[in-house]
C-alpha cells in the first residue's frame, strides 16, 4: 500500500510539473519595441512616465476640458503624435485594438492586462487627412507632407485649422 500511494503521489507530481511547463510556454512575449523607441525624447523621465503617466493625463484632461488649458506637455494628443505612426510600413492603419499589439499604448497595456479606454473616444493615431497626399501631424502646429508633394486640398486646410490660408485660396 505505501508503495502504491508513493506511485500515486509521484504521478501527481509529474502531472503538476507537466502543467507548469505548459504554463511557462503560454506566457505572452511583450512587444516593447514601440514603447522603447522614443523613450529618450519623452516629456518626463522614463521611470516617472512608467509609474505616473495616467496621473499626468488625468490632471491634464480636467484642466483642458473644464478650464481650457491646452498646454502640450501632458496632452494625450501629443503622446499619440510622437509615439504612434498612423500606418505600418505596409500601409495598414495602426489601432490599439489590433491583434499585433504594435500600437504604442496597447503593446504594454495588453501585456500587463490593464484595460485602455482612452481610445473609445480619443483618436488612437495621428490624424490622416482625407487627402491621401497628407501624412500626419508632427505636433500641434506642424504637419508632414508626403513625398508626392501634391498641394493639399482646400477641405484639408480647413481641417487642419489653417483657416487664413484656406480663405486666401477661396477669395
Amino acid at each position, binding site marked *: 500500500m505505501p508503495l502504491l500511494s508513493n506511485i500515486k503521489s509521484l504521478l501527481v507530481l509529474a502531472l503538476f510539473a507537466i502543467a507548469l511547463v505548459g504554463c511557462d510556454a503560454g506566457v505572452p512575449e511583450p512587444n516593447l519595441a514601440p514603447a522603447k523607441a522614443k523613450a529618450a525624447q519623452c516629456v518626463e523621465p522614463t521611470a516617472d512616465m512608467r509609474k505616473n503617466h495616467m496621473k499626468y493625463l488625468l490632471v491634464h484632461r480636467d484642466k483642458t476640458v473644464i478650464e481650457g488649458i*491646452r498646454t502640450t506637455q501632458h496632452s494625450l*494628443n501629443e503622446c499619440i503624435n510622437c509615439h504612434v505612426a498612423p500606418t505600418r510600413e505596409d500601409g495598414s492603419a495602426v489601432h490599439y485594438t489590433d491583434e499585433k499589439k504594435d500600437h504604442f499604448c496597447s503593446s504594454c497595456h495588453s501585456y500587463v492586462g490593464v484595460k485602455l479606454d482612452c481610445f*473609445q*473616444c*480619443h*483618436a*488612437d493615431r495621428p490624424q490622416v487627412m482625407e487627402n491621401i497626399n497628407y501624412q500626419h501631424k508632427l505636433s500641434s502646429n506642424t504637419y508632414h507632407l508626403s513625398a508626392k508633394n501634391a498641394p493639399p486640398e482646400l477641405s484639408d486646410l480647413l*481641417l487642419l485649422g489653417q483657416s487664413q490660408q*484656406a480663405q486666401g485660396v477661396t477669395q
Partner: protein
Amino acid sequence: MSQINAYRRKFMAAVGGVAVGGLASGVILRSVEASDVPAKPADQPVSNKVRWGMLIDINRLTDGGVAMVEACKREHGWGNDPKSRPEQQSQWMRTVKVTDKLTQHSFTLPVMCQHCEEPPCVDVCPTGASMKRADGIVQVNKHICIGCRYCMMACPYKARSFVHESLTDQRPHSPRGMGTVESCNLCVHRIDKGQLPACVEAAPNAVIFGDLNDPNSRISQAVKTLGGSQIRADLGLNTGVRYLGL
C-alpha cells in the same frame, strides 16, 4: 376677425423689422475678423470676463446655413457613423425651415446649441458632465458623462445627440465615443487658440462671432444697434447665439 387683424399687424411689424435689419446689417456685418477672438496663452484658464456669442443674419445666409453645417461635420467628424441609422446619426447642427402657414413665406436658419446662460441641460445632468465653461460655452465633459440622455430631453433646441456605436479615427481635437452625449461646443479647441469656430469661417459675411461682455466688440456693437432675437426667448435662457431676420 379681430384675431386675424391682430395677427396681421404683428406680422407686418415683423416684416418691417426684418427689412430694416437687412438694410442696416449690410453696413455693419462685414466678413469675420480674426481679432474677434483674441488668442489666449495656452497655460491660462478661461475667464468669466468673456462671454462668447454669435449673431447670425439669416437674410445674408444665402444657403440657409448648409455650408455652416458642412463645415461643422468636417471639423468634428459627425454625421457619418457607419452603423447608425439616419435617425441615429449625431447632429450637432441642422438647418430648420420655417414656413408661415398663412402667407407661405418661409426662411431657413441653422440651429445648434444656443449656449444659454441658464442651460437646462446643466440643471438636469446627474454627474456634472453637462457643463458651462467660465466663458459661457456649454459642452459635455465626456470623461464623466454616463450617457443617461437627460440633457437631450431637457434641451428645448434639440441640440444634443447620442453616439450609438463604437468609433475609430475620430478627429484628434474632437473626441467622440459610444455611450456619451455630444453637441456643438463652439469649437472650444479653436477658440482657445484664438481661431473662429468652423461654422463662422464657413459663412464669413453672415455671422459675427465675439465677446458679448466686451461693449466694444463687433458683436456687442451689432447687437446694440440691430437687436438680434433669441429662439424661444420666452424661456428666459439668455442664449449666446442670436439671430437677425427671424
